[in-house]
């Protein structure tokens, strides 16, 4: 009898200073979507990396289709029919989409088996992407794609292995609702084919939408495994964080003041067209849109990472020229970037260095030497406040779990104490507990009179946190809605709107 396609028994895995998995059991069945839940650093990714042989377990057994297996590297895992979408997106940026998808199993010419069959590769890619209704040209270099598209490519790649077990580690972290829908329909097809899908996410609503069973980990320990039908959001959260959480969106009404930042007729050729909007003191401006709407590009332009071709930016009514991030920071803007790996963390440096990075100059004593003591104290404070799970501040950030890396970046920008804080997907990959904490911090900042621009693809977050909501489509603003006028449907309508019909409410 083969009830479980996969059984992991008593898995232990340690890293220097951390016991990431402490005797975890995990089982998955065919044709079932099994959600794996837990706080940041609970050990979800590590458990899956044990399975695919990236971090083979220190002890414990893995049984696959009733046979005991030892998986030493991802190659063996793929051969055994286990494919994984990694939490940290991992493309070869300089190569084409199709080369990325078929990497390691390139189709070869039948007559000259030494050579790669590019035609066949193109055809197969085209088929695959069409099947999955992903609209990307197989020959473009992956580095030209937005993060969301990269994520779609990774999903397509994992599906194309025709594996028996597909692991998805936060596949929707950069996707907007439309793509999430799309992904879910793909998952449904996998399920119908009898594939076991292991699904990791921090987005509660997704779990109840797609999962059949759920396993919760906490601190490297197995807490429970149950059919989803026996769980509620609250019981799930309680299982994850070990306590009861009251409010995910603890929005407080702040005193909205004068216009702080005002953007007029901003233009970036090919990306942004005629962008005008204001943000007031004490206001949280949510920015919604579909993938590729240009939200990230807009923020990058405000922050001096991109050149605008025309348009003006005013702060406190005065025109400013922002040519570089350092200009932006000096005028009191902070920017939590969307792409954690590219613009965010410095992998080989310590957690502490990563926290203070944007703020080093404020720790200079005598204009030369750094005040290491204060630096450490401040970092310690944010570590506590955001519950960053790390063995020490000296640990390298690359050894932290994805969500904890994100928290470090949030800490970095909070520490600069900017007047205008731009947050691009601030809670991406962050667990529910910490999310509530970050939301509290954001709303408190607004109450202190700061202006917040929050780009998010999570509707509940946008709706729960914003005072006003700016919706973009195809590089233009299609609507600016008031909190009270907005709901998911309206936003989605404007987000999908053909442009030129910009409506400013």
């Amino acid at each position, binding site marked *: 009898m083969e009830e479980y396609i996969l059984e992991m028994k008593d898995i232990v895995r340690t890293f220097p200073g951390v016991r990431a998995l402490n005797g975890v059991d995990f089982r998955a069945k065919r044709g079932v979507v099994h959600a794996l839940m837990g706080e940041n650093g609970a050990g979800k990714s590590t458990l899956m990396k044990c399975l*695919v042989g*990236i971090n083979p377990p220190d002890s414990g057994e893995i049984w696959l289709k009733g046979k005991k297996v030892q998986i030493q*590297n*991802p*190659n063996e895992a*793929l*051969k055994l029919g286990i494919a*994984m979408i*990694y939490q940290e997106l*991992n*493309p*070869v*940026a*300089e*190569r084409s989409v199709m*080369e*990325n998808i078929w*990497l*390691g*199993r*390139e189709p*070869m010419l039948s007559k000259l088996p*030494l*050579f*790669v069959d*590019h035609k066949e590769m193109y055809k197969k890619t085209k088929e695959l992407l069409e099947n999955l209704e992903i609209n990307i040209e197989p020959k473009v270099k992956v580095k030209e794609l937005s993060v969301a598209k990269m994520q779609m490519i990774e999903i397509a790649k994992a599906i194309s292995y025709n594996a028996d077990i597909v692991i998805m580690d936060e596949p929707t972290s950069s996707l907007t609702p439309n793509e999430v829908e799309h992904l879910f329909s793909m998952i449904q097809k996998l399920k119908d084919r009898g594939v076991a899908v292991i699904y990791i996410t921090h987005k509660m609503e997704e779990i109840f939408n797609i999962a059949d069973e759920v396993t919760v980990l906490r601190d490297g320990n197995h807490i429970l495994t149950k059919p989803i039908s026996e769980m509620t959001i609250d019981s799930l959260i309680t299982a994850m964080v070990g306590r009861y959480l009251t409010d995910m969106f603890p929005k407080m009404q702040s005193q909205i003041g004068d216009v702080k930042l005002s953007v007029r007729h901003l233009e970036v050729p090919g990306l942004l067209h005629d962008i005008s909007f204001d943000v007031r003191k004490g206001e949280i401006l949510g920015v919604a849109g579909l993938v590729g709407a240009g939200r990230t590009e807009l923020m990058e332009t405000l922050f001096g990472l991109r*050149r605008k071709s025309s348009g003006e930016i005013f702060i406190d009514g005065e025109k400013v020229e922002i040519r570089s991030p350092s200009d932006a920071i000096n005028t009191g803007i902070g920017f939590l970037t969307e792409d954690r790996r590219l613009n965010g963390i410095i992998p080989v440096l310590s957690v502490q260095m990563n926290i203070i990075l944007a703020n080093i100059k404020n720790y200079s004593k005598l204009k030369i030497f750094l005040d290491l003591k204060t630096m450490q104290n401040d970092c310690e404070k944010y570590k506590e406040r955001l519950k960053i799970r790390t063995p020490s501040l000296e640990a390298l950030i690359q050894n932290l779990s994805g969500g904890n890396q994100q928290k470090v970046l949030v800490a970095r920008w909070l520490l600069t104490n900017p007047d205008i804080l731009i947050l691009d997907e601030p809670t991406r990959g962050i667990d529910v507990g910490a999310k509530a904490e970050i939301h509290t911090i954001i709303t408190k900042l607004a109450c202190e009179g700061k202006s917040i621009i929050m780009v998010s693809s999570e509707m509940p977050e946008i709706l729960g946190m914003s005072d006003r909501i700016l919706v973009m489509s195809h590089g233009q603003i299609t609507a600016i809605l008031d909190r009270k006028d907005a709901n998911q449907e309206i936003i989605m309508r404007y987000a999908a709107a053909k442009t030129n019909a910009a409506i400013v409410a």
Partner: protein
Amino acid sequence: MAQQNKVSNFINKYAIFIVLIVMIIALSFLSPAFLTVQNLINVLITESGRGILALGVAFAIISRGIDLSVGSIVSLTSVIAASLVQEPSYSARIFPNLPLLPPIVAVLAGLAAGALVGLTNGALIAYTAIPPFIATLGSMIIARGFALILTNAYPVPMLRPEFKIIGQGSLGPIPYVVIVFVIVAIIAYIILNYTKFGKHVYAIGGNVNAARTSGIKVEKNLLGIYMVSGICASIAGILITARAASGIATLGNNYELDAIAAATIGGTSHTGGIGTVPGIIAGILILGILNNGLLLLGISPYLQQVIKGIIIVGAVVFDMRKNARQK
């Protein structure tokens, strides 16, 4: 406007070839002797050795490594191959009692030496975590030591004509060394663009984690990469030895820098995953034509260095404008 954009895209894409062509045109005006068949063949002859080295080393660089040992492999190959094809009459033969071996044995012995050093490099890099710089620095020092031990630092002169012909003979007007160079370039092009191994070289250099999680056997590929580099160095060593008609233990000194420079000028990036054979060939030819041109123009050797430095930097600046931070 779109037209203009196309032109500028074209210039960006082919910048390094444009530099090459501009240099050729400029030199044809500056020196009448430049644009003669004989002179151009001479340039090719001269650059064939460095060219093959650069092609090999490019595999290492594309995979985000480096190979410092190629110069030493040239030396080692040189003395090994030469010592197997000395005139039997020559009194100071390295192996005095050696029977008359066919030259192919010498060639194969030389290639084996290069492959072995390459394999060692690859194994060190793949199975210990040491950086390629150190692994190949070590084998560079060791290989040179062996070349000296083997010959006691004396040249290995008096090679048999059957061997020298490799370096000095020609097929019609085209010398064998140039033919070998072209063949190696074509093979390198095919490997990098049309084979699995080539794709994997790019993938490993571009993102080793992605390569590993896609099931590529990174270690085995690294062995292959450094063997390619070692074998190319041996081929260069044999050509150079046959041309110089003497095995010399110091022959390849500092060639590694030249080879790496040629590959880098040709757009091979040390951050990995980027590099093309046509680019590398352009890099080699730029260096070769520059040398030739300065020589033809009779510029003082000291000043030559200054001019050379400026032109190399200038060429790459022009090529890299596309990557410069946009205004």
